[in-house]
């Protein structure tokens, strides 16, 4: 490509440049639209040429995502986007690889690849759209649905305990864990930027409303009246404060997180838990802020933001270094030598 063209691409790209010519086929009102918009708008800010970006997805509503991005993309098979992206990143470490997946795709059929991707720490970004339901197959409960969920496949209520996706990810030694919401686009965009800038696997769980099969699943974190009391926005180095008037905080009592009032004069901001993304122990407690009964006053708020970030070698860097070292040890490739092996003999005619 002519240098001029390349320059133009990098300098002038807008969200529109990342929008493909395909009609979007999600249901009207679906939370996916908001996420797509934020992803498209964050792309020009990354400073990465369009041709170096790849979106890989599995199967499910969210997995239609790559068709709508004017980048390279692959809409693959159910649960395997993580495995495909691993191979792609191993083969082409310089690409910016984004995995778009859902709660069924990544945590049910693709659960195995999901945890293995995290432990290997490929430098890719996982956008896990969690709507706590199977949408594309028309409304069965998912691995993140709450116990007792009544769906077409569980008319008497589901029996299985749900996954806590962030606790699972931390258990699999993920190096970047964050949560965002489809209905808070500004925050979502910030998190997407953070995810791309993290070197290693970035896991972003995005609460996404399925207005057809599970409408309002995250209402307590999005409805104006309730969200402030139920959500806790994490900021590095800042105390954990939440509530309608920023009137509540979190203190750490031993290993126990407790809600305290900031208005009764007993606790000040200085007494609160200060968020530290590098603290794995605290992250372990934070990801467990997962009470379902949000109406209970003692229930902990649901955190959003970056829970944990760690710098650890990526798989592809390890691979590149190993290949280089092998050349140092064994010398440049010599195919004739390889074909001959260690022992040869000659037959004379």
């Amino acid at each position, binding site marked *: 490509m002519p240098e001029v063209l390349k320059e133009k691409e990098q300098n002038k790209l807008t969200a529109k440049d990342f929008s493909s010519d395909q009609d979007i086929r999600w249901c009207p009102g679906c939370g996916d639209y908001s996420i797509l918009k934020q992803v498209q708008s964050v792309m020009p800010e990354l400073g990465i040429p369009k041709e170096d970006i790849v979106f890989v997805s599995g199967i499910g509503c969210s997995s239609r995502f*790559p068709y709508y991005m004017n980048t390279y993309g692959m809409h693959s098979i159910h649960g395997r986007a993580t495995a*495909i992206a691993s191979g792609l990143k191993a083969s082409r470490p310089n690409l910016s690889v984004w995995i778009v997946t859902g709660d069924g795709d990544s945590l049910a059929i693709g659960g195995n690849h999901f945890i293995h991707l995290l432990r290997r720490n490929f430098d890719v970004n996982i956008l896990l759209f969690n709507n706590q339901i199977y949408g594309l197959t028309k409304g069965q409960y998912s691995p993140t649905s709450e116990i007792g969920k009544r769906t077409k496949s569980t008319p008497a209520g589901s029996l299985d305990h749900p996954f806590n996706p962030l606790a699972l990810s931390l258990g699999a030694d993920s190096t970047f864990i964050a949560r965002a919401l489809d209905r808070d686009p500004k925050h979502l965009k910030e998190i997407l930027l953070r995810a791309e800038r993290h070197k290693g696997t970035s896991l972003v769980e995005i609460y996404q409303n399925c207005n057809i099969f599970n409408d309002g699943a995250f209402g307590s974190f999005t409805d104006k009246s309730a969200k402030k009391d139920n959500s806790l926005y994490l900021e590095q180095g800042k105390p954990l404060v939440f509530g309608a008037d920023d009137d509540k905080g979190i203190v750490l009592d031993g290993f126990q997180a407790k809600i305290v009032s900031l208005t009764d004069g007993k606790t000040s901001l200085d007494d609160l838990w200060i968020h530290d993304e590098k603290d794995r122990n605290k992250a372990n407690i934070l990801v467990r802020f997962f009470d379902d009964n949000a109406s209970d006053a003692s229930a902990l708020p649901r955190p959003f933001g970056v829970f944990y970030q760690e710098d650890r070698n990526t798989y592809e860097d390890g691979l590149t270094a190993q*290949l280089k070292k092998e050349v140092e040890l064994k010398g440049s490739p010599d*195919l004739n030598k390889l074909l001959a092996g260690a022992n040869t003999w000659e037959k004379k005619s």
Partner: protein
Amino acid sequence: MTLEKENTEIQKVLEKVTILYAGDSGDGIQLIGNQFTNNTALYGNDLSTFPDFPAEIRAPLGTLAGVSGFQINFGNVEVFTPGDLCDVLVAMNAASLKKNLSRLKKRGTIIVNTAGFDKKNLRLAGIDPADNPLTNSSLEGFKVHEVDITKMTRENLKESSLGSKERDRCKNMFVLGFIYWIYNRSLDSTIDFLELKFKGKQEVLKANLKVLKSGYHFADTSETFSNRFEIKPAEMEAGQYRNIIGNQATALGLIAAAHRSEMNLFYGGYPITPASDILHELAKHKNFGIKTFQAEDEIAGVCSAIGASFGGDLAITASSGPGVALKAEAIGLAVMMELPLVVINVQRGGPSTGLPTKTEQSDLLQVMYGRNGEAPMPVIAAQSPSDCFEMAYEACRISVEHMTPVFLLTDGYIANGAEPWKFPSAEALEPIALKVKDPRAEEDAPYLPYKRNEDLVREWAIPGTPGVEHRLGGLEKDKETGNVSYEPENHQEMVKIRAAKVNRIAKHIPKQELDSGTTNSKLLILGWGSTYGAIKTAAKELKSEGVDVAHAQIRYIHPFPENLGEILSNFDQVIIPELNDGQLIKLIRDRYLIDAKGLNKIKGLPFQAQEIKEEVLNHLK
């Protein structure tokens, strides 16, 4: 090492010998088998081997289930199989004798380790101690050499600081030394091997060397054998040779294809018998830039390869039947996306876990048809250990030049078997005609990722290339734009196009040839894959007995070579021997509507030439 002048003057010259080494799976049988093989290859004999071992790493000691065998057939004439019956049986214990006696020729030679015939070993082998074959005259007619190998090994190592278990482990070296003397061989190749293997373990090295030489000298001085044998180097085509094992050849074929074509090789896989050695071999040569990725499961193995292929690498996955079953959905994705991918199925006995360490050709229909929807793929098969090299190279070529996943079939028999290989020079290997899409300016007309050339092959547009960004996926796509399409007419057309694309590969593969015989022969033996050696041997022997048969071995199964139908039309009788219950025969009958007859062996073992001869003679009665 320089050996003292032998006191045995007479050397009996033989044309061909088959030795079966048998013992407990912990006795180091495979190791001495491989050592003898390398030694034989270096000596210049033609050879073929058949390692046969239990699925369990340490099966119950001393039992029939735990018997490990290694058969080698070598000669100064052309050798195509590990031999039907053996001339020499080495039996380290009672179980190995009981299990293998039927494979010994009449008046054959038995070398037994008498320590393996004590009460305990007899009981473990299910033999009444009162009925010890060494004493009950049941071995009459065979030439039996009884040696207390265990005792001699211990005697040798009296002074060693090794523990008793470690000392006993050296007894395989006694056998090897013993056999080396009988066949008038140098110990050098094994001494070199031991020195490398036990580098830094001086005591173990010393012990092994001592026992090896002791076995050699014992054969010399004990006058167990009145003469030594010599099998003169074989008459083979002039050139450089080496010994090669099938899985190793497969790996080298992949490396060579990538290297010659200046592509990066990516291998994603999961360990499975008998395919793992391909991964092991590739991982040894990472200085070629090979990326080996041991995935979390078979599915991730193939999916990572698909990801790498999307990224522009020459992508490979290998497995055996059970793993290939798991990969099927992803392979269908590669068919749909029309990306290159080589899938190697090193077949083993099935169904299910089946016979993991035994050979079979029963996955042919699996790889032909085992995917959902209409998902045609090229299928090719290697016919011998060294042919794995050529066919692996071919699989890569077809896959990249035709933008399609390709199946390469080998099986446990040729994957673990060895033979001399007249290896090519790198320069003689034709690079793959790799065509990747160039960058283009955005202003041009929309990029059409599914536009095709005259062979119906689409372009490979690789991420990182500006102006040709596109989306692939498993959904049916419009025939040019690649956009999702549910149009009825488009789907039918795309199904036909994908099939026609594979069929057109027939124009780019070699024509079928007769391996022996002529189109005037009375009968055609039509084989595929690893049955080559046994059929070739049978055909050769039949010819020398005055029976006129032809032999053709198919290596390109889908599509078949263009002239195969014409060849078949010359014969009134066609016999198709297969190590399955009749799979190629279904494809042949379906395609050519001929009344071919099957010869099916499903015992986890390769054909013996004799079995094929008998079947042919039955048909010609």
